[in-house]
């Protein structure tokens, strides 16, 4: 066991409760400013209204912060919770954790879901959720030891900087010869020096005998973590079996789990092969449909895209079981063994890369004009090691590259870095600078919204052009899908509660490939049902991949194939079997609707959550530049002439761009109206009083907040 020098600041011995029907029925609160450790009860009302996972996180965060709290105030909390189904080892995709905090880039509530063992181990150690407030004086570790029944705040010195080495050492130290008993949450030096820090959640890969990682990437949660001086959160738990989660009906659980698990084993090899290639198959498919972002979302395809697609990574990925939770048959968390970086502190050494997944390939590859699979892997590796979100890094740097190529910034601003698209050495150098807190990397690390301000104020760059091409909304960088031709997906991004991340609604295929939702009302219905059902996974500690990435062979014959109702029904049975709470598919939607609306109201509390904050940059809606228009001229001309009945014969490209823009922006506004109406919100995008009453979230503070914003009965 390595000798690590820890100074004990506070220890709480506790009697670990038995988990009952998926709940530990208490939460853990740690305040790093005064070293207080407290255990709080979970009430029946909390379970009824918020279910668990993200719901519990939001309730704890709501009570921890005021409307005036900023991300770097000590009272801001980082909350982590799995959910009542989290930790089930026989049902695929049942090991997720949800993390929430006030984001440094959006100023409002951020949530990010992540694999790894932490959330389930936390629950089995006696806590449905963890909230960490305050700010430690020195670098600190919080240990939750469910085996010995103690929570400790430990000051640590001399720990390694990066996430990989930190987690490796802590896994070895606290594992006491059983490293699988440990899960570590850590960040890295990049999280300290940027606003796009991520968290690495570890799981122990027994086959390869090493700690592996999944990331809670979005919205700078790692930055909050680093700012609080948290070096790591460590949880220690023992063996996990079906009975560890104490399901209400053991047999019913086993029955439905077997159905879903077996179906995946049978069908995944015939469909997307996620157990072999993860989500990399999406790269070439997106490219074929002109949906793969390239060069800062200017274009949707590139001839070199297959170089970073599944057929390449299939050969690079290390073979073996890659489930980020015990017993998951999707097992899509692939990695690269013995990878040798050619830059940075690990230059020339053999390392293990956890990834890349689709988002990282598109963000750190095609969107930067980089089509080399090994550079993508190296960017992936260092983003994780430094604690930086690969999506915000990719989208942020893509924006800077376009500004460089457009002449808005130049070498005097970048410290001499040549930032043209495709320059992989510059991309890597920017990343290393982020970790060191130096140079232009530090500027890119502020994210797109702040870069726009810096470039305008300090370098005199064109504000309106940057507003059009800067791919952020609500302060969060877009994830990696092209939305120009999918109005529904524009809504999927723009109307998402935390900012443009596709976890709420991924409607591109339904909208433009299958044309399932031609009317505004159909799009609005989809922008109600899909965000609600997808929210439900985050309440329960589940991964959504088993729902719709492996599909029953007879699904296409069902009434609503997009919803995969056979699986939705299985999930309702799963919830009932574990919690004893009888549920139908409609009940799952109702559960989510409460939490979803509560999060919208939470945004309002923080000064956001209204129509103006649902705006998206025009690059997400249509062609900004003449090059973009001309590259798809046939498509745009046809739309203007045939669909919109415009006479474009004598019009210049610039005039046609303006015409198309007016039409498309009006459509987005109409879509917002339709979605707000469907969700029971005002035309300003605020939940109506009748809506919060119907959902049972009409707490006095909520009602007062709505009334102060002019919402009347």
């Amino acid at each position, binding site marked *: 066991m390595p000798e690590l020098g820890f100074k004990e600041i506070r220890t709480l011995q506790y009697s670990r409760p038995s988990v009952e029907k998926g709940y530990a029925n208490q939460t853990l609160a740690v305040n790093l400013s005064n070293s207080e450790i407290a255990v709080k009860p979970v009430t029946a009302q909390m379970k009824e209204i918020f279910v668990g996972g993200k719901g519990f996180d939001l309730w704890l965060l709501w009570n921890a912060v005021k409307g005036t709290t900023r991300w770097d105030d000590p009272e801001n909390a980082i909350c982590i919770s799995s959910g009542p189904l989290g930790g089930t080892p026989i049902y695929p995709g049942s090991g997720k954790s949800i993390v929430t905090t006030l984001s440094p880039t959006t100023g409002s509530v951020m949530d990010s879901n992540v694999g790894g063992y932490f959330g389930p181990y936390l629950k089995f150690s006696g806590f449905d959720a963890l909230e960490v407030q305050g700010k430690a004086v020195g670098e600190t570790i919080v240990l939750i030891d469910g085996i010995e029944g103690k929570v400790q705040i430990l000051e640590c010195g001399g720990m390694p900087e990066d996430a990989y080495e930190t987690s490796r050492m802590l896994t070895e130290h606290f594992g006491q010869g059983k490293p699988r008993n440990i899960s570590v949450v850590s960040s890295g030096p990049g999280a300290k020096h940027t606003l796009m820090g991520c968290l690495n959640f570890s799981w122990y890969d027994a086959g390869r005998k090493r700690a592996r990682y999944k990331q809670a990437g979005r919205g700078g949660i790692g930055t909050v973590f680093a700012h609080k001086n948290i070096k790591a959160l460590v949880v220690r738990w023992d063996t996990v079996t079906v009975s560890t989660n104490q399901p209400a009906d053991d047999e019913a659980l086993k029955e439905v789990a077997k159905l879903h698990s077996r179906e995946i084993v049978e069908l995944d090899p015939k469909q997307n092969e996620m157990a072999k290639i993860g989500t990399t198959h999406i790269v070439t498919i997106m490219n074929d*449909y002109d949906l793969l972002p390239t060069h800062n979302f200017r274009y949707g395809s590139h001839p070199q895209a297959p170089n970073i697609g599944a057929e390449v990574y299939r050969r690079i990925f290390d073979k073996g079981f890659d489930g980020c939770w015990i017993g998951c048959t999707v097992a899509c968390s692939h990695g690269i063994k013995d990878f040798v970086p050619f830059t940075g502190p690990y230059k020339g050494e053999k390392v293990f890369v956890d990834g890349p997944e689709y988002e990282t390939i598109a963000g750190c590859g095609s969107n930067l004009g980089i089509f080399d699979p090994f550079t993508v892997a190296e960017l992936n590796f260092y983003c994780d090691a430094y604690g930086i979100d690969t999506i915000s890094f990719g989208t942020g740097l893509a924006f800077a590259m376009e500004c460089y190529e457009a002449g808005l910034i130049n070498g005097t601003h970048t410290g001499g870095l040549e930032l043209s698209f495709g320059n992989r050495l510059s991309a890597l150098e920017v990343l290393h600078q982020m970790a060191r807190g130096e140079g232009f990397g530090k500027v890119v690390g502020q994210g797109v919204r702040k870069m726009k301000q810096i470039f305008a104020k300090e370098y005199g760059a064109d504000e309106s052009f940057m507003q059009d091409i800067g791919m952020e909304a609500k302060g969060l960088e877009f994830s990696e899908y092209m939305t120009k031709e999918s109005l529904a997906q524009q809504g999927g991004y723009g109307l998402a509660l935390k900012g443009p991340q596709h976890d709420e609604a*991924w409607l591109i295929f339904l909208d433009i490939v*299958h044309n399932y939702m031609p009317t505004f009302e159909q799009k609005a219905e989809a922008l109600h049902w899909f965000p609600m059902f997808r929210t439900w996974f985050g309440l329960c500690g589940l991964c959504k991949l088993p729902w*719709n990435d492996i599909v029953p062979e007879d699904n*296409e014959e069902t009434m609503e194939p997009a919803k995969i109702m056979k699986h939705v029904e299985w999930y309702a049975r799963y919830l009932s079997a574990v919690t004893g709470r009888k549920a139908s598919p409609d009940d799952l939607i109702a559960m989510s609707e409460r939490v979803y609306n509560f999060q919208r109201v939470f945004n309002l509390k923080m000064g956001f959550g209204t129509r103006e904050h649902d705006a998206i940059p025009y690059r997400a809606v249509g062609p900004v530049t003449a090059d973009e228009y001309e590259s798809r001229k046939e498509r745009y001309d046809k739309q203007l002439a045939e669909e919109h009945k415009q006479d474009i014969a004598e019009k210049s490209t610039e005039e046609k761009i303006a015409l198309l823009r007016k039409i498309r922006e009006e459509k987005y506004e109409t879509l917002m109206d339709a979605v707000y109406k469907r969700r029971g919100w005002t035309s300003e995008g605020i939940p109506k009083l009748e809506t919060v009453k119907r959902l049972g979230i009409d707490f006095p503070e909520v009602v007062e907040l709505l009334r102060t914003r002019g919402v009347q009965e």
Partner: protein
Amino acid sequence: MIKVRGKEHPWREGMTIAELLKELGSSYPYAVVRVNEKVVSRPHFENTTIPDQAEIYLVPMISGG
């Protein structure tokens, strides 16, 4: 002979994915078809030929992401 979703189907030289789908008579708008390990999207159905002995998987990619 090729296999489509595990069932044998006659093959002929030059057969494309688009022709195969027509022969199968399915009205479902498949966006992606796998030919052995290779993923082929609809824009390439017309110009992708199927080799003899191929395993064909009709991939119901719908909600993804």
